[in-house]
């Protein structure tokens, strides 16, 4: 998940000088006039330079200047994805009967409920919210996390805040500016979402509720990131912690939504609250107040924590390291292990937990449904699976394999970060060939994907088997289903290797964009009514429908060959080109 940062850092660096000189000018003027921004000190009599929020306005302007591309892309992506969903649903579901039947089949399908949450009616608005609402909320949450970490801990780690902190800025100015800009961006997203929905002639109140809920999802996770940014010295860790909270929130409601007995889990999750605002079906406005209160509480907590620590330090103090290297730390491969073992452990924990919980929740899914036989056959035919449980498990593994691919891409992109930040030079000036150096990360990326999916299969099998009583066969069956996804995830990691070698300038943006598009098409393409040839473009489309379906090895072999081909092409190109 560092990848977006890597690229962003490139252009921030280049503007750093300019930004800070602006800041100094502002600082000089500051003695004479009061701050214009909403975060300036309230009373005019107070000397602003003594105020802990002094300089917030300038820092916020600096953040906006640095983020003018980053924010526009996020806002466009979030608003655009809702607009396209609304547009297509407007044309797809004109008859009330069709909408009712869709709503019915959604409620009958646990995998739909786990993935996108419940549907609260059969109006057009309700269906659109079901289709896109949760995903946009997750997107807004990621926006909040990335933007806040970028302007707090990442700047602090890079030393930029030190430069700024030496000018006339208050202790909390950086945090306040980051939150102000991020919350502002979330509110803009929310407003635009409401405008888009109203423009499509959806009820105004519901549209406003949807916009507000999405904005508040972003704000809450901005608050989470503001807290995690205070905890560790590393921006990477802080970002990872905040994303874990987001992932946990998604997981809790993924378990709670399809299982009425566990629905309290959805009420624990902030994303569950966002779903339960149910914008077009008698909005629960009070839930928005809860979200706003949580945001304020998190921001206050972050401020308290920030007040208790030194600049550059985390609340968790850094421990001294080893005076010498462990005996095994002697090659690029072991270095990659040394650098990644902590992160990999986190990924493994997340996978084990998610898979066990989702697997356990699969039991009883069929029993709690009052689906008509017709709906049942429809679902089964669409997924090619033999039972509702299998269809649900297949969605679980599809989701986890996209996550595993994200792990692979992030690992491969370390090559790019090492090259851009000069660490590659330290290795390659030693007796280490480029292939040996680059292959180390590729091995961990590919191996990590396989490991994570194997873990997912085993844990899901254990979770489900423990409740049905047939642990052995379940573990074997689900392990096979999980591992079948591995070659498809390898293709995406292989593509990232190819990009590192062939297109060093656009590596990061291209790799994540491809992953995001593949995830969207893979998880939502079928219900968006995309044509088959588009669906076939993603590697995951070629994975045999397991568990339950028939296993064929041919596509898996092909996917592996494609992945290997991409990786080899990338490594060969990397060996030939100049180091940047």
């Amino acid at each position, binding site marked *: 998940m560092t990848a977006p940062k890597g690229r962003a850092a490139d252009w921030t660096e280049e503007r750093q000088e300019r930004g800070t000189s602006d800041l100094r000018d502002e600082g000089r003027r500051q003695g004479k006039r009061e701050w214009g921004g909403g975060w300036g000190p309230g009373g005019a009599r107070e000397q602003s330079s003594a105020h802990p929020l002094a300089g917030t306005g300038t820092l916020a302007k600096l953040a906006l200047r640095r983020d003018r591309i980053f924010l526009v892309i996020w806002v466009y992506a979030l608003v655009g994805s809702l607009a396209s969903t609304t547009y297509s649903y407007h044309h797809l579901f004109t008859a009330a009967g069709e909408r009712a039947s869709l709503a019915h089949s959604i409620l009958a399908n646990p995998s739909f409920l786990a993935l996108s949450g419940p549907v609260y009616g059969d109006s057009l608005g309700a269906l659109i919210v079901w289709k896109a609402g949760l995903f946009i909320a997750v997107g807004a949450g990621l926006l909040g996390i990335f933007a806040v970490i970028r302007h707090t801990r990442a700047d602090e780690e890079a030393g930029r805040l030190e430069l700024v902190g030496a000018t006339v800025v208050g202790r909390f100015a950086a945090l306040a500016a980051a939150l102000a800009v991020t919350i502002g961006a979330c509110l803009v997203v929310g407003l635009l979402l409401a405008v888009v929905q109203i423009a499509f002639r959806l009820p105004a109140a519901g549209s406003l509720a949807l916009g507000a809920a999405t904005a508040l999802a972003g704000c809450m996770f901005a608050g989470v990131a503001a807290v995690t940014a205070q905890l560790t010295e590393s921006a990477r860790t802080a970002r990872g912690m905040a994303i874990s909270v987001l992932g946990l929130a998604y997981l809790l409601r993924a378990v709670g939504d399809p299982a009425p007995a566990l629905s309290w889990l959805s009420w624990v999750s902030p994303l569950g609250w966002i779903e339960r605002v149910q914008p077009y079906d008698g909005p629960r406005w009070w839930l928005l107040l809860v979200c706003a209160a949580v945001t304020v509480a998190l921001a206050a907590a972050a401020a308290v924590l920030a007040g208790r620590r030194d600049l550059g330090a985390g609340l968790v103090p850094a421990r001294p390291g080893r005076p010498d290297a462990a005996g095994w730390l002697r090659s690029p491969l072991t270095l990659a292990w040394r650098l990644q073992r902590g992160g990999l452990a986190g990924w493994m924990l997340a996978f084990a937990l998610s898979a066990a919980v989702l697997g356990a929740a699969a039991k009883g899914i069929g029993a709690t449904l009052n689906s008509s036989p017709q709906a049942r056959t429809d679902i089964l035919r669409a997924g090619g699976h033999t039972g509702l449980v299998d269809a649900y498990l297949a969605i679980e593994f599809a989701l986890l394999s996209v996550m595993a691919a994200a792990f692979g891409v992030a690992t491969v992109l370390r090559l790019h970060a090492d090259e851009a*930040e000069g660490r590659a030079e330290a290795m390659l000036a030693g007796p280490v060939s480029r292939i040996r150096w680059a292959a180390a990360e590729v091995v961990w990326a590919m191996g990590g994907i396989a490991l994570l999916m194997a873990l997912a299969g085993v844990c899901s099998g254990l979770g489900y088997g423990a409740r049905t009583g047939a642990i052995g066969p379940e573990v074997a069956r689900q392990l096979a289903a999980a591992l079948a996804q591995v070659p498809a995830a390898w293709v995406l990691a292989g593509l990232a290797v190819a990009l590192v070698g062939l297109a060093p300038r656009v590596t990061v943006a291209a790799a994540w964009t491809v992953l995001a598009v593949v995830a969207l098409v893979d998880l939502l393409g079928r219900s968006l009514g995309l044509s088959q040839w588009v669906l076939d473009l993603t590697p995951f489309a070629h994975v045999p429908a397991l568990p339950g379906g028939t296993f064929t090895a041919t596509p898996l072999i092909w996917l592996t060959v494609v992945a290997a081909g991409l990786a080899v092409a990338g490594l060969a190109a990397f060996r030939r080109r100049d180091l940047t």
Partner: protein
Amino acid sequence: MSAVIEVTGLRKAFGRTQALDGLELHVAPGEVHGFLGPNGAGKTTTIRVLLGLIRADGGTARLLGADPWHEAVSLHRRLAYVPGDVTLWPNLSGGEVIDLLAKLRGGVDEKRKAVLLEKFELDPTKKSRAYSKGNRQKVALIAALSAGSELLILDEPTAGLDPLMEAAFRECVEEERRDGRTVLLSSHILSEVEALCDRVTIIRAGRTVDSGALADLRHLSRTSVRAELARPPAGLDQLPGLHDLDIEGTRVSCQADNSALDELLKRLTDAGVRSLVSQPPTLEELFLRHYTDATS
């Protein structure tokens, strides 16, 4: 014995910028060679070509008799490198980085490492994230100096060091020279180059503008002379080879080409010398002359 570094007519362009434009660099075995040039002259680019990190567009570069691009791995076993801007793995301790880099070359010389840690006063247990620029530089220096390689390539290695540490660094380079190792030292700090280097190469805008033993280079340069005389001197302004001549009554100051020194001194003694100060050119003057001449 053949040259350790043999670069002729080296060319490298980045887009429309011509970074190297026919650069020459010759380093003999066992010498400490100063590599001088203003920012952006192409010092680091040359070093990156020598390390096989980038490929030259034209010309030849030989390192220890081999091609630095194709033989990168086997060459790197025989050299150690300190970059100008050291970036380390933030969550590895300094000690871990030093050991890792040493082990990649074959093994750690624990005794030498301990001596160097002491000498540079580095705490190896700190995480790289927490090191200052100077301390990161020390990590890279200790890793390179403990390697015992036959060639050291140092790219502005003392940029972040305090004067005490600079002195420690000079001692280490002297030791390397005594052990018969070759050092390529790219630097801005002229006093350092002057103190350490046998020969220097001065480059500008990707071209070599001067190269040779420090003594020879000085020979080509001027001596600054200041004298106080008994009588106002006669005929100095007609003398060829004098520059910046300034006569104020009985005080004279000027820069003299070495070819004009003899004649100058004769005329000064004719006027009766009360005091005389003559200074050999410092490297700084040499350096400034090359750049101001070339830019004007």
